[in-house]
């Protein structure tokens, strides 16, 4: 025979899945919420998202090419996800240069300083967000009102910030003015960052990702269940001081965090048992911060803290072995 045959070890076939496809599915899952946020906050939302995505992609490319001197891997789509998530985590009126700084922190500190895709410990978008929150607290927490004319409750404080403030001043929950109802929260009629706007559309994205096997249910469900139960206990004890659990679930980026950020594969645990522990941890820390801490939202910090615990969980919690332990 004239031609040489390939000889390589088994398996000789490969599934049609690729990392790039997985990343793009995450992007598709975020599109409904993105469109809705443009609808709610106007073209500003699109501006923030485009700047964030372009900046994340550009920073990854430049840092990999000129600083790390490796072949840039921007085509894998993960930088786009980080960009969208970063945009989802900031107010729509954030100045462009602050977005750039956030993108630089996300890609440079959050991702590439650890070695790039797959090696980072913390969710890059959250690193970017927290970096901005600490550096530009004023700009990061002044929320524009929603642009939909039909709604008169144009508030500039997020519902959770409002509650935190009022409760501190001794106003019982029922008396707080300007709190959106649960129905409004579900479709996004409240002030907040881009990605906080519609719990329903975020859930839709989550279902799509579970259907496409991008993520499993373990992390989002364990976070949501923990938040429900834990905040439910407090609410049961004193509904004057503590808001009801459904409110917690629908506000403060909890859905966004539980569905899109805590599930980031790179920074979350690798088997169902560990993922459930991780989810419970995020739920507990989030509610603790909301109730006793200084920040009204809490989920970003909770995820970052559990990101740091992930290597330990991977080390100690093993998948169910065949043939017993």
């Amino acid at each position, binding site marked *: *025979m004239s*031609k040489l*045959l*390939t*000889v*390589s*070890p*088994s*398996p*000789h*076939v*490969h*599934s049609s*899945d*690729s*990392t790039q*496809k*997985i990343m793009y599915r995450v992007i598709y899952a975020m599109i409904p919420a993105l469109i809705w946020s443009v609808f709610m906050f106007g073209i500003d939302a699109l501006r923030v998202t485009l700047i964030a995505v372009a900046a994340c992609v550009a920073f990854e490319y430049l840092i990999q090419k000129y600083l790390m001197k490796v072949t840039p*891997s921007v085509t*894998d789509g*993960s930088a786009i996800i980080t960009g969208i998530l970063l945009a989802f985590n900031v107010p729509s009126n954030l100045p462009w240069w602050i977005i750039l700084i956030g993108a630089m922190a996300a890609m440079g500190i959050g991702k590439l300083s650890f070695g*790039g*895709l*797959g*090696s980072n410990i913390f969710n890059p978008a959250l690193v970017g967000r927290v970096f901005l929150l600490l550096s530009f607290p004023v700009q990061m927490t002044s929320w524009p009102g929603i642009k939909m004319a039909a709604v008169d409750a144009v508030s500039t404080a997020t519902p959770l910030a409002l509650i935190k403030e009022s409760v501190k001043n001794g106003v019982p929950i029922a008396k707080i003015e300007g709190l959106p109802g649960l129905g409004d929260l579900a479709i996004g009629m409240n002030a907040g960052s881009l990605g906080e706007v519609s719990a329903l559309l975020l859930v839709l994205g989550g279902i799509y990702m579970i259907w496409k096997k991008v993520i*499993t249910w373990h992390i989002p469900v364990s976070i949501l269940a923990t938040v429900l139960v834990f905040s439910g206990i407090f609410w049961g004890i004193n509904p004057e001081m503590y808001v009801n659990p459904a409110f917690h679930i629908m506000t403060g980026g909890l859905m966004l965090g539980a569905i899109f950020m805590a599930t980031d*594969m*790179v*920074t*979350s*645990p*690798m*088997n169902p048992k560990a993922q459930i522990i991780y989810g419970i941890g995020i739920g507990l820390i989030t509610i603790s911060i909301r109730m006793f801490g200084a920040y009204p939202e809490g989920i970003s910090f909770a995820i970052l803290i559990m990101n740091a615990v992930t290597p330990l969980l*991977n080390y100690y919690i*093993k*998948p*169910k*072995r*065949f*043939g*017993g332990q």
Partner: protein
Amino acid sequence: MLKTFKIGGVHPPENKLSKDRKIEVLSIPSAVFIPVAQHIGAPSTPVVKKGDKVKVGQVIAQSSSFVSTNIHSSVSGTVKKVDFSADSSGYPKQGIFIDVEGDEWMEDIDRSETLVKDISVDGAEIVKKIQECGIVGLGGATFPTHVKLVPPKGMKAEVLLINGVECEPYLTSDHRLMLEKADEILVGIQLLMKAMNVDKAVIGIENNKPDAIQLLSEKCKTVAGVSVVALKVQYPQGGEKQLINAVTGHEVPSGALPIAVGAVVSNVGTAFAVYEAIQKNKPLFERVVTVTGKGVSKPSNFLVRVGTATSELVEAAGGLPENTGKIISGGPMMGRAISSLDIPVTKGTSGILLMKEEESKREEIIACIRCSRCVSVCPMGLEPYLLMTLGEKQIYDRAESERVMDCIECGSCSYTCPSNRPLLDYIRFGKGKVGQIIRSRKK
């Protein structure tokens, strides 16, 4: 709900191109090369020399220890030489070259097609005959069958599981055998049951072979103790431990043999070979081989004499396609890529798969995104991404405690990894090293 094994698994495209092609008898080649190591265990010892005349079914290499087996001539003719040549491992192995003259069988072999149902021998004789006739597991593992039938001291077999799963994509030799030799297989199963002294046997067949499930279920009605269970299509269900788990729900403990949960697993092809050995006095020297591939003009199932060169099978299936990039002995998940068409069919060759050039290249390896898919598909509940890293970094003690030795090398992890990481390559390497360490510790 159809049964299947509980942990992991994948479902690659089935591509059973040759499933409707009846088994054809391949014409006898002009020469054969019969390796003396066609089974797990010690290679057999050649008992013929250059110039000897041999008949079909004559012993040409003798079993050299308990875990070994006889090798029989598959042709009649003259021994040309006893020499080394490559087998499917790619390494030169000792074997017997025979130039074919005619087709003269040993006189005591019953060559008629009549079905012999009555079992006239006792268990011990069956085991002895199986050993003499050189029968090994025909599913690909090639473990000598008589060894499995004799449980270690203190253990008792309770059930015989017959593997009709054929979970490897493309392969159809077991499927065809079940359709065309159902009666013989059932007698073979009864013989195995008698040899093991069990009164229960279950044939596991995946649901993508409804015709075989129906036929065997029908025929089982008249056979006491034998039943068929339809299984959900899931790779690697043909793995012994996975099949036992799917059918009985038991998990064979780490490091133990199936007999630890009272099960012995045999392939349908093996059951057929047992029938022929006991009822027809015919040693194992031919088997059904699927020849297939997307570019193959006539995907086929052939009854082939052991020792026939791969080229003969490929020719009979319509010739080697222009753009063939890889030739695999076995299925695409666990088979071996062979480097030449001269390599002979042996007892363990279940198929020859010709892959096109574009199918045979691996894709670019990129970083692990820690998606944990490899973990979720591993049928042994291992963490392939971790075992790969441990293999790569040569951290063998940790690899051992992470149970690298449990890996059955099914390839589900590498198949699934979206970053195209060569997980099994490194795991195999680590497994080899850890195995060495364990053996040296025992000494």
